[in-house]
Each structure stands twice: as structure tokens, then as C-alpha cells.
């Protein structure tokens, strides 16, 4: 089976996820600096979630450039990844309601852990579908970045119950790690 429809569905879902997140944003209630300050945490959460969803889409896009074949396992791994990506707008809304406190910040980490596990499963499934000569496999190499970010989220999750700000710092650090372009696939395209 070819990957074209899997890509089309993923693009559709990711486009809608990115777009509905903005519905959660609020205007400052009055024209004072204090009112503007009050919406800043929400704006920050929106920005971080937007960057994360964009990172997943970018990586997905790059990886699927090398993929020639998909199987049922690939479709399911991808669908699981989409499930976690759809939870980002919910996380934004939660942070909006109760602020960047223990629970929503930990939940943000849980969504990131879920998404990164699914992404790793998707990589495995794509390699499994294509066998040893897989273009995805040779381009990925050891998958170091994936494991470093996964470890980051796993650490950040319990830390959120002690200090949400430290967890947020870890999320931002991992995001920056991914903003450095992933040249593994570009060389091959």
C-alpha cells in the first residue's frame, strides 16, 4: 500500500489541530498592562504547543519522504500518533482554566510521552514494512534525538508535581533541540 492517503489524513488532522488551538486564545479583558500579563501564560502555552505540533509534522513529512510502503501496523502507529496530537488543544484549554499548575503541566508531559512513543512505533513499523533495505532505516540511524527527547519528557513528568516551571523549561529545551533542522532525510530526498 502506498503512503499517499496516510499523508493526506495526517496533514488534514494536523492542520485542524493547529487551527483549533487558536480558538482557545483570549483577548486581554481590558487595555491595561496587568490584563495583558494575565493572558501571557496562555499565549506561551499556545506557542509551545504550536511548535511541538509543527515539529511532529515536520519530522513526519521528512520521514514519509523516504517511505515507499505502508502496512496495517504503520496505519495504526500513525493513528495513535494523531490521537496524541489532537490532545494538544485540550492541554492549552486546561492551562487557560487553571494556569500552569502541577496537573496540566504534567498532563502536557504525558501527551508528549505518548506522542513520542507513537512516533518511535511509527518509525519501527515503517522499517518493518520495508525490510532491511528501508530508506527510512538508513536515514534514521540510531534515532538519538528521539530517545533524548523521550528521556526529557519522562523526567519532566514527575518533576511537574514539584516544580511546573522546571518541567516547562525541559519542554522548551527539547523543542529547541528539534528546531535545529534534521538533516538525516534532506540529504536523501
Amino acid at each position, binding site marked *: *500500500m*502506498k503512503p499517499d*492517503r*496516510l499523508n*493526506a*489524513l495526517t*496533514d*488534514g*488532522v494536523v*492542520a*485542524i*489541530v493547529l487551527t*483549533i488551538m487558536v*480558538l482557545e486564545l483570549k483577548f486581554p479583558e481590558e487595555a491595561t498592562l496587568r490584563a495583558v500579563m494575565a493572558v501571557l501564560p496562555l499565549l506561551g502555552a499556545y506557542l509551545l504547543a504550536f511548535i511541538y505540533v509543527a515539529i511532529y509534522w515536520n519530522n513526519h513529512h521528512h520521514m514519509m519522504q523516504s517511505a515507499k*510502503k505502508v*502496512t*496495517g*501496523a504503520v*496505519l*495504526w502507529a500513525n*493513528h495513535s500518533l*494523531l*490521537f496524541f496530537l*489532537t*490532545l494538544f*488543544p*485540550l492541554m492549552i*484549554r*486546561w492551562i487557560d*482554566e*487553571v494556569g500552569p*499548575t*502541577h*496537573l*496540566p503541566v504534567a498532563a502536557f508531559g504525558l501527551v508528549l510521552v505518548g506522542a513520542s512513543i507513537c512516533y518511535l512505533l511509527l518509525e519501527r513499523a515503517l522499517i518493518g514494512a520495508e525490510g532491511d533495505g528501508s530508506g527510512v532505516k538508513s536515514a534514521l540511524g540510531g534515532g538519538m534525538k528521539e530517545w533524548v527527547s523521550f528521556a526529557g519528557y519522562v523526567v519532566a513528568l514527575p518533576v511537574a508535581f514539584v516544580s511546573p516551571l522546571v518541567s516547562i523549561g525541559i519542554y522548551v529545551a527539547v523543542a529547541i533541540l528539534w528546531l535545529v533542522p534534521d538533516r538525516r532525510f534532506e540529504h536523501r530526498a
Partner: protein
Amino acid sequence: MKTDRVNAFTDGVIAIIITIMVLELPVPKAAGMAALKPEATLFAAYALAFIKVGIYWFQHHHLLQASRRVDGRVLLANLFFLFWLSLVPFVVRWVGEAGVTRDTVLAFGVIMLLCAMSVAILRAALLAANEADAPIAKLAARGRKGQATIIAYIIAIPIALMWPMVAVAIYFAVAAMWLMPDKSFEQLTD
């Protein structure tokens, strides 16, 4: 007619269906783990609905991969299928408002039954639109999962009137059946 636009249209509609469901989910208003509990049921309903819509997308994907062409009847059957599928977010919202009750479980079962039946109609339309040697002919000869699904929902609907949770268990069991990989199909279209 080629299959590309019916695929693109379906992918668009399904992408919107599975994504807008998240708008129905509430967030806990208070801090602390206890505030999470009332939201857990709706979250489970969301996860089940997400899996169900995924399963229907897979079936659509498989049927269309095995087809070479579509005709007007296929397009109508496809629209009929998308109509029932688009009601899934509506039921999720209803579960959010009313909880897992007899009525909401019944409604979910009825919509799932109509989705399963409309896939069967779509399959028949594709079969008629394609030549006898197209992969869809071989695929349709092995439609056991589809039949089992329809039977399971026909059984689950009256059960939902008496014991909603038993019907919910049947819905999960049907989902589990579809999660089993189908290697023979992959060989069919490669």
C-alpha cells in the same frame, strides 16, 4: 472516474470528524487528582470514538486501495457513509452532557450499525464499478469481519436497553477485532 478525489474528500471529512471531537472534551476546573475523575468517562468515550473513526478510515482506505475506479453510485454510497460517520462527534457530545446512559449507548450503537452497513453498501458499489479481476473482488470475498461487525451491533443495540455497560463491552470487543493486523490484505494489494 479515478479514485483520487473521492479519497481526498473522504480524508478531509474524516480528519475534521476526528479532530473536532476534542472540542467536546472538558477540562477539570479545580486543581488536584480528584477533579480528573468526572472527566475520565468522557475521555474514554473520546478514545473509543477516535479508534472507531480510525477503523472506518482503514476500511475505506483498504477498499479504495483495492479499487481501480469509482462511479456515481460509489460517490453516493461514500456520501451516505460519511453522513453516519459525521454523527460520531455528536454522540460524543451527548455522552459529555448526559453520561453513559441507556440512550447515549443506544445512539452510539445505532450510528455504528449504520456506519458498518454503509461500508457494506460502499463495498457493493465498488465491486459493481470494478472489473472481476480487480483486487476488490478478492477482498470482498473475504468480508467476514464486516459481517461480524454488523451482527455484533445488531446484538448490542437491544442489550443497550437493558445493560448499557454490556453493550459498551461489545463496542470495545468489535474495536479489538479490527485492531488485529490483516496480513493477507497487504499481500493482496502489493
